[in-house]
């Protein structure tokens, strides 16, 4: 018993000694540096979304090589949280209380984000562009949190509205992922249906782990819809559309912006994705916008890893962070968190490669004081993965 205790003590001491000395948590800003942090699922089932964090990293490298921001370089701290909120919180705490971040950029995932949302709010640490369109991030709005991703609810409303009003669809079925992402989309779709005096003909929940999607397709088919709204993972959407086509299940498929990477979707469905209509949260991969071409050549071309693909997840990392860079520039050389937040609030009509971004001074009940984007446009997949723009900008409010 005595020896056991000694052993425990020995181990505890070594354990303790392995910790570093107390570091005084800075505000994340020095004369030459601004520290920005981000988490991303670099491993685990959601690892495809890891490209977002890498995109931001490459974008920051490009900014630094082109002069930085008001004479400071951006120091980027990215860590892998494997889409596990416990790890997200651990990493955030480690970086925030260790090196000390000035602000946080993007960050993939609704549940990882929600796990740290209150922590940031309490310390009034600015956070720009969470990679999630869940309403929870802006409802109720928080002074420190600036959302860039258009609300899932809003996107769904636009898609359903278009289907009913422009395409004349009468029977709408919805396949949704059984989590915050899918449920938000479902709610948006249902509210739009209700506004038109209609109901859905089927609502089919998908589990993230489901690999056999035939029961879901059967259920959707049974309802004989003329439009099916898919709010699931891109891989699942691909399967559904592919198998449905092979089954001669004839219907109009619509999906959310996460499935708007037509070149990719076309590739993995071997062409079956043709004809699908999706919303967008920014430019499409083959957009002709000069800024897109610039990013593709200068950011992606120069800094991206060999296996990286120029897809929406990658440039989403740029898209979500553009407003933050704008805010940092406008805050000026004398950089504090308060000044940064004020600079963000003054962003009006900012357009990067995403939708137009507008913020207003913080108002307690006003979602759109902190939800920067409220527009999207619809595109349709053509043969070979090209996209055809179907609508102009539509409001998601």
């Amino acid at each position, binding site marked *: 018993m005595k020896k056991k205790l000694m052993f425990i003590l020995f181990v505890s001491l070594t354990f303790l000694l392995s910790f570093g000395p107390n570091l005084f948590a800075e505000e994340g800003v020095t004369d030459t540096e601004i520290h920005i942090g981000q988490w991303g699922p670099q*491993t685990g089932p959601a690892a495809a979304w890891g490209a977002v964090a890498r995109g931001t990293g490459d974008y920051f490298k490009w900014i630094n090589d082109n002069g930085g921001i008001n004479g400071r370089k951006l120091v980027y701290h990215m860590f892998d949280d494997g889409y596990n909120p416990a790890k997200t919180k651990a990493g955030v705490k480690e970086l925030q209380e260790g090196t000390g971040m000035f602000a946080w950029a993007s960050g993939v995932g609704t549940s990882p984000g929600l796990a740290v949302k209150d922590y940031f709010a309490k310390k009034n640490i600015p956070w720009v562009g969470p990679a999630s369109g869940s309403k929870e991030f802006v409802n109720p709005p928080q002074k420190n949190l600036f959302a860039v991703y258009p609300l899932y609810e809003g996107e769904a409303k636009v898609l359903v509205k278009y289907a009913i009003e422009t395409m004349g669809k009468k029977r709408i079925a919805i396949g949704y992922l059984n989590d915050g992402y899918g449920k938000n989309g479902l709610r948006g779709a249902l509210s739009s249906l209700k506004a038109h005096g209609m109901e859905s003909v089927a609502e089919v929940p998908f589990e993230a782990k*489901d*690999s056999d999607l035939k029961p879901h397709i*059967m*259920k959707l088919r049974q309802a004989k819809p003329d439009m099916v709204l898919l709010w699931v993972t891109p891989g699942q959407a*691909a399967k559904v559309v592919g198998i449905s086509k092979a*089954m*001669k299940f004839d219907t109009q498929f619509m999906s959310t912006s996460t499935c708007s990477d037509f070149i990719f979707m076309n590739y993995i469905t*071997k062409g079956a994705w*043709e004809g699908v209509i999706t919303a967008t949260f920014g430019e499409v991969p083959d957009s002709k916008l000069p800024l897109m071409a610039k990013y593709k050549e200068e950011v992606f071309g120069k800094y991206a890893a060999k296996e990286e693909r120029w897809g929406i997840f990658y440039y989403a990392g740029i898209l979500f962070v553009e407003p933050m860079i704008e805010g940092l520039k406008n805050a000026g050389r004398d950089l504090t968190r308060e000044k940064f937040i004020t600079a963000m609030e003054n962003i009006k009509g900012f357009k990067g490669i995403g939708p137009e971004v507008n913020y207003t001074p913080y108002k307690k009940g006003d979602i759109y004081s902190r939800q920067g984007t409220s527009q999207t446009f619809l595109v349709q997949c053509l043969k070979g993965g090209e996209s055809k723009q179907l609508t102009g900008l539509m409001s998601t409010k």
Partner: protein
Amino acid sequence: MEYGSEQKNTGGHGHFNKEGIMIDFIQMIVSGVATGSTYALMGLAMVIIYKTSEVPNFAQGEMALITSYFAMMLLTTMNISVYLAFFLSFVFAAILGAFLEFAILRRAKEPNVLGMIVITIGIEMIILGFVSWKFGAEQKVMPFPIGPYDGFIVGDIYISKLDVLTLISALLFMIVLYLFFKFSKLGLAMKATQQNSVAAQIVGIRTNRIMMLTWGISSLVGATAGLLIAPTAMQPFMMWDPMLKGFAAAVMGGMTSLPGAVIAAYMLGIIENLFGGYISIEFKTVVAFVIIVLVLCIKPSGLFARHYVKKV
């Protein structure tokens, strides 16, 4: 195909009449059988290993995974025929299985079941990490002669060609392996090794070789499943769900019975599809497991295995 705003006639299948309901029912059964075939292959692979070493191999899925990625690598980087690539992949799978047994499982001293399970879990993590590291997490496309969505439409029922191929493989493997275990000398040697490895060694059976062979064969069967799943979705986590369901099916059928695993796998697939189609999609996996537990309550060693009564 054009998607206009005209009302599309979605008729042809699924009318709300007896014929439509019948067709839906048959389609569900067919889909269930298709899914069940994949589970059957994984279940078979697990039963083979369990039959000889009493270890549930949690690394089964990942072994199939790495073989599929190996095949993809061969097909995309080298210009060889598909059949040659598959043949090489099978060889790879067999060697991988044998190697794992030789290098790791055998080295475990005085193993207890839980320790072996943890070892297989560890191997699974290593292989998963390795595949994700080498190939990245994004979904890839497997160059396969049969497209993932190619199929036949018989009447109004859709069957994909891949499903047919999986079905044939599953049944073929089941028959071949069953006959092998029952009638061949090698099969007999395997059973002997499982029942009492010391005694088997005494009568001259080279248990080490038998174990390696078992793992090799099991890996091969699993690899078939992997290669047939790959065309529809190729990403590092694609084998988790089939492996789990395959394991569950093997348990329900009896971990020592090959036909049992296959039959249970089909039952599982059909139940899932029927339940999902008629009652609740959300709970289809849960119900499948509940049924398995109920089955086990009645027959604790699975449906088709002989109940091993522990003697004092």
